């Protein structure tokens, strides 16, 4: 099913933001929409968006490739993206990340066995005064989690797990 069939309201809202002769502008919001369910942009979605905006699939793919919040492959349901950039690192972010990985038994870039969490290290998220911190990117968008500890994070993961069950 195409995005326009699946999310007619959202698509209309997005298209209304830009002058009709510049509908290409809608490519970024549409990609977020396309990513909502699978967590990445599928080949079909590339085609769909290209058609909707009258640009080539190559054009759309090169947008996906450029921006780090778009993904072209599947990962865990939630990407847990820990900021390890300079300001956070000055406040223990590297150690936090290492401890978290140790607790989950995975390396940075890997996904937990249940497919729920992928741990990633990212650059500054504009929360430098609240390190350690990370964001989760998942079906419900992007959320910040600040002043974190490993314990608090494990609690969050438990909550995400049971939330997932409820949904199913």
């Amino acid at each position: 099913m195409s995005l326009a069939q699946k999310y007619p309201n959202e698509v209309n809202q997005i298209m209304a933001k830009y002058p009709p002769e510049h509908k290409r502008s809608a490519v970024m919001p549409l990609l977020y929409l396309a990513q909502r369910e699978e967590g990445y942009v599928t080949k079909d979605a590339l085609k769909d968006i290209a058609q909707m905006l009258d640009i080539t699939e190559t054009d759309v793919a090169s947008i996906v490739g450029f921006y780090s919040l778009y993904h072209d492959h599947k990962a865990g349901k939630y990407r847990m993206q820990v900021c390890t950039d300079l300001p956070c690192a000055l406040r223990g972010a590297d150690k936090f990340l290492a401890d978290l990985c140790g607790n989950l038994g995975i390396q940075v870039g890997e996904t937990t066995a249940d497919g729920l969490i992928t741990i990633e290290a990212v650059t500054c998220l504009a929360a430098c005064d609240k390190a350690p911190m990370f964001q989760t990117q998942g079906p419900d968008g992007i959320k910040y989690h600040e002043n974190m500890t490993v314990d608090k994070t494990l609690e969050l993961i438990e909550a995400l797990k049971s939330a997932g069950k409820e949904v199913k």
Partner: protein
Amino acid sequence: MAHVLLRHRDIPNLNQLDVYQKNGGFEAFQKAVTAMKPNEVTDVVKASGLRGRGGAGFPTGMKWSFIDNKNWPHYVVANADESEPGTFKDREIMESNPFQFLEGLALASYAVGANAAYIYLRGEFWQVAALLDEKIADMEKAGLLGEKLFGSDYSLKIYTHLGAGAYICGEETALLESIEGKRGQPRIRPPFPPAYGLYGKPTIVNNVETFTNVPLILAYGAEWYKSMGTPDSAGVKIFSLSGRVKKPGNYELPFGTTFRELVYNYGGGILDDRPVKAIMPAGASSSLIVVDDKALDTPMDYASVRTLGADLGSASVIVIDDTVSIDWVINKTIHFFKHESCGKCTPCREGNHWMLHLTERIHSGEGSQNDVSLLLNVAKQMQGKCLCALGEFATMAVVTGIERFPQDFQKAVKA
């Protein structure tokens, strides 16, 4: 002193439209639209001495007056990309004092005759964008946005646009490309956005904090604003303080406040009460200032900071104490810039790739003194040759780090 920008810290629930309006909100906008000519608004901003808060410190009123009036339509774009490591002020404004920012954006739009304004938020500000969308809807409902405002002929719509994880989109022309649905790569300048901006039309791009100053400047006048700060740097600034301080956070202070006051009076001093070793006053793009008493007593305004061989930039003050080795710092900054180089121009694309290899080698203890000289040389070879400032930014910590903290590198390399 009462806050000018972080007024929510003084007034509870300022992010509610009724509270904001009770405190004088949107009076300036209404007055401008109903009783002032657009260029009169620009003139007040010009007279206030307001300079852009996005980093370059360009006089805001002057920028608005450059708008090309022979080419229509016009656009105004708020730069809410806030991706400089160490910067987190725009987010607080948008989350807690959103209407003052939106009013400033509306005033700027009126001043340059734009009927549409876009707010470009970094993709990670997903929740902030959702909140702004709500606030914009509130304004529409209250007749503060839309067609024929306050019975005038002026109409305005404001839209949010989320980026998707690319620091370079903070650079204004890359940002415009990104709104146009393209890869966020900088354009050749000139022409600058006031002549050739969004969709090729005259466009004003300002930082969120810059806009947030405008409503009170219009309400209280240019003289009031100039009475704060220094002659070179008028008004107040939000300093994002991070790193090895006890109380990191945003502090709104007049320009000219010293580093010492910021770090010790507001930041509560250094963790474990260690001495300060270095300060990066403008985030990861910054030169490293060697901290001594003279540096600590330097007032934070555009001109004074320059005497320390650095720029104030966006005033994202990263504090480094003596437990930290500078070779690690530059390894972190180059990791960032290598990741964020857009890849358009050769020196930045290849230089950062090369520098990362060198800083990794040096930081892991595998490097030699030759590698350090080579690193310095590569950084200098990039300088003055890149298409946009990112490539230049990438070299600042490297060059000043090696030149100002040679002992850290001597320790790091193999004997």
